[in-house]
């Protein structure tokens, strides 16, 4: 009995603030990075490649792009692919995720990003943010999981649409009647694009 009471007390005293610290830290990372990213976009003196590089450098440390790529493909297809194919896929898909992210930023005009709260969801942390435009409010959730390298983003949910989830079902549909090589081709072919204008 004593042991149990001790454990409960221990749990109450120690685990909470520990987790609270994690929550605060993760929220902090998101807030800070968003500020840096927005400042970088607003800074018109930077040329494109410097700008893109700066943004990616800000984001990469807490995005687990490789893990996202794996989960997007799904365990079944990942295990079936040969090691070289896997590397090729990782390269292509990570590049694509990053490009897609950068491209979304080009649509940015004068929106405001508000970081609302960091929430514990089982053993993950969800950071809930809102992209506030003049006529709309879009919810974006950054989902973190704990890794050896600290808390990292493994999925983003925009208006309830999980990026990983949509890729998962696309890949599974695609690979139903096409080969893994076709998928790699598809990823290769779509990396050259011109960015549309974001003026409102």
């Amino acid at each position, binding site marked *: 009995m004593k042991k149990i009471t001790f454990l409960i007390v221990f749990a109450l005293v120690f685990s909470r603030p520990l987790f609270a610290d994690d929550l605060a830290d993760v929220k902090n990372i998101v807030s800070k990075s968003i500020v840096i990213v927005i400042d970088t976009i607003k800074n018109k003196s930077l040329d494109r490649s410097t700008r893109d590089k700066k943004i990616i450098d800000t984001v990469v440390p807490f995005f687990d792009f490789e893990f996202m790529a*794996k*989960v997007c493909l*799904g*365990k079944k297809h*990942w*295990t*079936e692919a040969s090691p070289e194919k896997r590397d090729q896929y990782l390269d292509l898909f990570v590049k694509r995720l990053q490009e*897609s992210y950068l*491209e*979304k930023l*080009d*649509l940015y005009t004068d929106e405001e990003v508000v970081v609302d709260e960091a929430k514990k969801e089982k053993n993950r942390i969800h950071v809930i943010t809102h992209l506030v435009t*003049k*006529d709309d*409010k879009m919810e974006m959730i950054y989902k973190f999981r704990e890794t050896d390298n600290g808390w990292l983003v*493994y999925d983003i949910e925009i*208006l*309830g*649409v*999980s990026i*990983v*989830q*949509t*890729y*998962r*079902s*696309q*890949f*599974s*549909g*695609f690979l*139903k009647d096409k080969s893994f090589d076709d*998928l790699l081709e*598809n*990823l290769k072919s*779509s990396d050259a*694009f011109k960015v*549309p*204008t*974001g*003026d*409102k």
Partner: protein
Amino acid sequence: MPAFYRLVSKDILINQSFKFLWIPFLVMLLNTGCSSNTTQPTPNLIPSQEESTVQINQSKPKESGIIEEQEQQPSQNDIAQDEEVDDFEEFDEFEEEFGDAEENQVWDPLGGYNRVMTSFNDVLLLWILEPVAKCYRWILPEFIRRGIANMFTNILYPVRLVNNLLQLKFKNAGEETIRFVTNSTVGILGFWDPAKEWGGFEAHDEDFGQTLGFYGVGPGPHFVLPFFGPRNLRDALSMYPDTYYFDPKTEYVEGIERQVAVFVLENVNKTSFRIGEYESLKRDAIDFYPFLRDSYEQMRQKEIEE
């Protein structure tokens, strides 16, 4: 003669004769909703595969030779998996979180038609709507376009009011009413949005599809509409009560030509704020139609949960 014409016009035809046409569909959807709910809590594919092979074994014992061959293939994979177990322990956890991609597929018996309609809408959007919206954006300054958008939002107050009430969201319904009264008067027919800017009252978008979802009606098959884009059967049918009963534009804009004109204006105006977004989405997709479909269904589910 004009009076007679008016009698047989849309009011009679649509509001009277077809008034309850959509109800049987809803009953149907309710059934599908219930059935899909009961099948959902079994997302684990692996046991079901085992079950199915067992069933095959039992029902066709004579073809066991072929089945043994089939069974050998997955077992080879198992060995490959065993070698990489460390790599996949965390993987499994996430496989569970996102569910099996094949089992989570949106119900899509109309897939072939939907794909065609998605291409139709794609051409319409890229070659007509967006170019027109670009010119429109170039001609009209932002504050006017913003004002027009606000007016369209304001006039849809009855839709939001009724659906908020039906979903028992009384606080939101109250806020909507404050918004409507303030914006229609101080905001000059809804051109400005003082309720939000000064009072912080946001619009609470709710439509009849969400109301039905709130009461447990399932989405039904995915269904892409021409001009309107992705829907599912529930949401497509829900457009009917929303437009014909609750949308004042239907009541006060007379004649199909004018209604089309208003619809076009509303959508060109809306698109003028979103130029480039569609292309950007499209480039994200490996396969655009399922991407749109899944995004739509996930988004709606979230909206209903809220």
